[in-house]
Structure formats: C-alpha cells, structure tokens
C-alpha cells in the first residue's frame, strides 16, 4: 500500500514538474543588460532624449560601460528602442541613478515621466534622483580613467557627500514623499561636469510641482540639514568671524572650524495676524578643529561661543530669506505647522510654500557650546 502511494506521488510530481515550463518569467543573467543609470534630457527642439548606461562584462569589450541614446515620448517606450541597441534585455531592477537635466526640470509635468519607475513593481525605488546642471549627454558619455564605472562612482559620490551633510539626497521613494506632501517641497542632489571632473555643487530646490527654483551650495546645505535636524555623520563648519582682530594678509586669519557633534532642535509654532511664527532653538555642542587666530579659549569661551552663535544665526537667517524669496520650503517646518497649528495650516495647505512659508516669521536662535577645543591651547 505504502509503495503504491509513493509511486503515485512520484509520478504526479514528475508530471507536474513538466508544467513548470509554463512559467514564462525565466530570464538568464547572460541575457540581461542591467541599466545602472538613466539620463533624461531635452534637446534644442525640446524633444525628450533618454540615455541608458549599463556595465559590460565581456572580456573582449575595451570599454567597461555601454551608453545609448534614444528619443522617445516616455521612459517605457524608450525601453524598446534601447533593447534594439544594447547587448541584451533591459532590466531596471538595479537602477542606481536617474540623471535629469535642468532643462527638463524647468518644464511643467516632467514628474509624470517617472510614473513607470513607481508603477512597475520591478523598478528599484532606491535609485537616486540627480539634477544635472547643463546638458546630460556629456555626463552620460563621460568615462574618466581614474574612476570606476561612472554610474557606480556617481552613486558613491552622492551617498558619501550626503553622509557628510554636504548635499541632500532624494531617492525615488523619498522624492515621491516630498513631492506629494503639501507641507514640504522636493529637492535633489545637483551634479555638474566641470573640467573633466564630476562635481556636486550642492542641492537643487524644486517647487511643489517639481519645477526648478534655486540651488543651495555645500555650506548652505549643511545649515539646512541642521535646521531640518537631519545631521548624519560628521558635520564640519568653517566660519569667518568678523569681530576678531585681523592683520591684512592674503590669507584669511579670522577663520574657525568646528564639528557640530549633535543637533538639539526645539521648534515652536505660533500663528498670529495671518502669519506663522516659527521659533527654532538650536543647541549645538561643538568641537573645535581649526582656529587661525590667537584666542584664549580657556578664559573667554563664552565670547567665542557668542561670536559663533551670531555668525550662524546670520547665515541661517540669510538661507531662510533665500528660501522664502524662491518660494520653496525644504525645511520641513510645514510638518510642525500641520501638527501644532492644524486649523491655520489647513487653510493654506494647498499653497503652503507660497502663501504661508514665504510670509512666515522664522526666528532662529543658536546656542553653541564648546565641548572640546582640540589638542592645542
């Protein structure tokens, strides 16, 4: 009886395994072209141009990357065009970077192009979105001798620069959140090809519809991340203190550098006279790493702290004014407005950055405390 059962089962399993060929999703690794980087740009006549960059694993190929360029109406349509060009079948499951030309960012409705990357469950939503200052083409075809594959180099560059708080980083997933959340505007890393070198000049700030507004540089980005309370790894600031005595020289000897070792942020939101009032208290323990002027920190720490506070407050105030002028709000203060002043927020939620943030009164108070001033007196 048992033996008969066993035989029946075996036959059944063998027969059923024949059906496995009905799975049509089988794809051999040799038949895949992994697209690591996609470029989106507009040409002179405003036609959409798409680039793909994928690694080549063949020993015979001299170049380690293959880049193709097609014109198409959508990204998914470009896949067909690309598959007729690249070595094998396109897969965007390992996508690392999506480069978008600033020309694209200036036109309404470009965010709809990304739909396929969200809708297709096979796409990777951790790909970084990067705004390219200038045309995308030279970046896509750029092949430096002293770097590894450009797509991986850029990915690493963006990650590490973001880790040091120098640029903001938006993955597709994060970008979607920033774009749809009414209380915050999106941003993405900016990238430029200058003198045959890939440079990240800072962060591109976009408005609620994804249209490019303005850019901030590396220092401003550090300040922004302090205001956002999103300090990641080492955050090092260099300030020039105008109140320090200074002898004329080609070198700036009033500079001081320090690590901000922690950010303790307190935000209180008020609403009065049709205006939001944000009081941001920042407690920053700092660790001096460089001081180009003579100063007795032992005795006069408080005065130095006060000078640093004043300088930081000034710079942050300038940054906020710049954001308000450009009508963008990457600070995330809108989240506080929604959480603590919901009734007032609800009225302006549809145009938060234009109607409320741009007019808001943002008061920043910085309180640094020198915890450590290094190995020298």
């Amino acid at each position, binding site marked *: 009886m048992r033996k008969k059962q066993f035989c029946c089962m075996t036959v059944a399993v063998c027969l059923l395994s024949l059906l496995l060929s*009905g799975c*049509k999703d089988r794809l051999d690794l040799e038949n895949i072209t992994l697209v690591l980087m996609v470029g989106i740009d507009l040409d002179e006549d405003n036609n959409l141009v798409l680039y793909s960059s994928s690694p080549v694993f063949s020993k015979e190929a001299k170049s380690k990357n293959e880049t193709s360029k097609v014109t198409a109406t959508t990204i998914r349509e470009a896949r067909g065009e690309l598959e007729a060009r690249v070595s094998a079948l396109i897969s965007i*499951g390992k996508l690392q970077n999506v480069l978008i030309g600033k020309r694209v960012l200036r036109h309404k409705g470009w965010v709809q192009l990304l739909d396929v990357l969200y809708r297709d*469950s096979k796409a990777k*939503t951790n790909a970084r979105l990067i705004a390219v200052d200038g045309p995308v083409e030279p970046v896509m075809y750029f092949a430096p001798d002293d770097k590894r594959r450009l797509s991986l180099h850029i990915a690493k560059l963006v990650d590490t620069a973001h880790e040091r708080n120098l640029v903001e980083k938006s993955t597709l997933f994060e970008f979607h959140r920033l774009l749809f959340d009414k209380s915050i505007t999106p941003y993405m890393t900016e990238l430029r090809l200058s003198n045959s070198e890939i440079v990240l000049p800072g962060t591109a700030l976009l408005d609620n519809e994804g249209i490019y507004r303005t850019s901030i540089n590396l220092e401003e980005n550090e300040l922004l991340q302090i205001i956002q309370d999103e300090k990641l790894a080492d955050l090092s600031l260099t300030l020039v203190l105008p109140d320090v005595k200074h002898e004329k020289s080609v070198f700036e000897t009033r500079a001081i550098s320090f690590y901000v070792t922690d950010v303790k942020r307190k935000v209180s939101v008020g609403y009065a006279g049709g205006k939001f009032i944000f009081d941001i208290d920042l407690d920053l323990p700092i660790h001096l790493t460089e001081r180009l002027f003579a100063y007795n920190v032992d005795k006069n720490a408080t005065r130095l702290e006060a000078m640093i506070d004043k300088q930081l407050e000034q710079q942050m105030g300038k940054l906020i004014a710049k954001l308000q002028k450009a009508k963008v709000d990457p600070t995330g203060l809108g989240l506080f407005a929604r959480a603590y002043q919901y009734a007032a927020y609800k009225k302006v939620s549809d145009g938060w950055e234009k109607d409320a943030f741009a007019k808001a009164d943002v008061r920043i108070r910085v309180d640094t405390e020198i915890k450590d001033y290094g190995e020298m007196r």
Partner: protein
Amino acid sequence: MTGSVLKPAKENQVTLLQYILIIHSMQLGIGVISLPRDLADTGGTDGWIALFIGYAGSLVASLLIVQIMKKHPEGTIIDLISRFFGRWSGYLMTAVFGVYFSLYAYLLLDRMILLIHSWIMQQSRPFVLMLLFVIPAYMIVKGGWRALGRYAEIILLCSLWMPFMLLTLFDQAHWLHLLPVLKEGWMPVFSTVPATVLSFLGFEAAFFLYPHLGNKKKASLGIFVANTLTLIVYLYVTILCFVVFSPDEITYYNDIMLTLAKIIEYRFVERFDIVMLTFYLLVISKTWIPALHMTVYCSHRLVPIGKAATHLLLLLIGMLAVTYIWNPGWLTSDKWIALFSKFGLLMAFIFPVALWCLLSVMSWFPRWQK
C-alpha cells in the same frame, strides 16, 4: 488516504496554542498588505484609532461564538443548528457556510496569486501559479485540524523575523505625521470602522474549530488572545506606514506594505520586497487553507458520498478551472472581495449575535434546558 477530514473530534484535537494560531492566522492575510492605505483613505492619519473599534466589535462577536458553542460542545455549528432548529435548517446552514468558506478560500487564494503575478512573475499565467499552491494545500487539508494547527505553528516560527526586519524602517519615521490626533474629529474614524471590522474576519472559524479544542475552558481566553495578536500586528504596520509615508501620498499606493519593504536594502540583498513577499505568501496561505478544510467539511456533510479527500480534490480542480476560464484581474478581485466582505459581515457578526439572542430566549423554555 482515509477521510481524515471527518475524523471524530477526539482523534483530531488541537492544543490551545494551535487554536489561537489557527484563528489568528485566518484573520491575518492579504489585509495587511493594503490595510494602512485603506485606513488612510477614509480616516486620514487617525485611521489607526478605528482599529480599536473594529477590534472591540470582533472581540464581542468572537466571545458570543464561544458562548453559543458551549451549548453543544461536542459538535460544530452544523450539529448545534440541527439539534436546536431541526435537520433542514442544519442542511441550509451547511450550504451557506460551504458557499461562504469556498468563496473565502478562492478569493484569498486568487488574491495571493495576483500578488505573485504582479510583483514577481508578471509573464506567467495565473492558473499555473495557482497549481503550485494547490498541491501542498491538498496535503495539509487532508491532515485535518491537527495538521492545520501544526502548519500554523511552523509558519509562525518562519515569519517571526519579519516584524523585526521592518523595525529598521523606523529611522525614516516622521512622527509629526500623527499629530494632531483626531484632527478632523471623530467622523473620519467612525467611517473607517467598517474597513477595520472586515480585516478581523476569520474568527468565525471557531464555529468549526471549537469541538476540536482539547481544553474547552480556555476557549474564550484563546479567542481573545488571537484577536489581540491580530490587533497588534495591524497596529504595528499601520503606525509604521503612517509615520514613513506622508499623509498626502499614502493613498496613492496599492500594496503599501510591499512598497515599504522595497526600500529596505542591504549590501548583500536588494529588492527586499521580493524576499518579504515570498515569506509572506506562507502567512497568506494560512488564511485560505483552513477555509478549504471547512468547505470540504460542509460539502461532505451535505453530500456524504465518497471520501472527504475526493471532495477536496474536486474543489481544488474546480478552483483551477475557474481561474483558467475566468482569470480575474485586480479590479474584478477587488469587486468580489468587496461583495464578499458584506457576506462576511453577515456570517461573522450578524449571524452570531442573532443566534445567541435566539438561543438565550430559547433557553428560558424548559424543553431546551439541559
């Protein structure tokens, strides 16, 4: 190869843990994948509060079921109805429960296949995918309640890591999303309650499982623990989604839990959603496999011809045939599940309440006091 589905209760008893897990696992299935989105749809960021109301409702219904079953502890609901209301009412209820559980099993199995189809194997035909699940299901259901209980235990062990994996996502959390609590008052919360009530469906399995429970004194405790476990899981994923996704974007995603798992990434494994979904399929399988068992129980009571295993075989072949011919897509599946949940409301909430009232009234008369 005997009809072990119909073995008498003594030989197919389940322990308290198995009883808890079978009920809990029938509740926890495809719901989790889209639940946070459904709650946000009507309740905004306060949708999670409605979970407690849904939980209270399901708890009341569950405890009533246990109270009802106490009146005839040695049999299932079918035996109880036949005893109190006559043979023909018994037949009628058998048919109703049979249809209910066959729909339950089919719609959930089909939804699971759709998930695999759209997330993993987009080019394969759904009935081929279904075939792969039908065989293990046959083997488990044939073993009766005890096998189902053991299956539930094993799957619990296999899926324990998942909530811990999701913990890493809390570093992307924006807790401010949850404030202010009750931002639009209580109305959105109340309008979300129906969605939460339905996500607790599954405890009606106690109607059939109760006679198999060894220690019947713990039945109420068991069903309480099962419901609470389900609440904890639901609450966990809902809060997680609410703090990670912006309140303005959360309603744009369909399978929100999978989208969330997609952003978990390690150096050695990308696309964590696929790993997650693959394991979660096991959890989903625990919802429809017991339902299959109850369908077969009902069909065999109604038409006691042949072995129960033959009924099961025919049922599974029927499901395959339906998928082959009908091949429902997401829209059809959504529509049918919405219809089915109305049926569920009737069977799991209204039916026990009505039956309990009826039995309480009847027990005043000396004829039914025993």
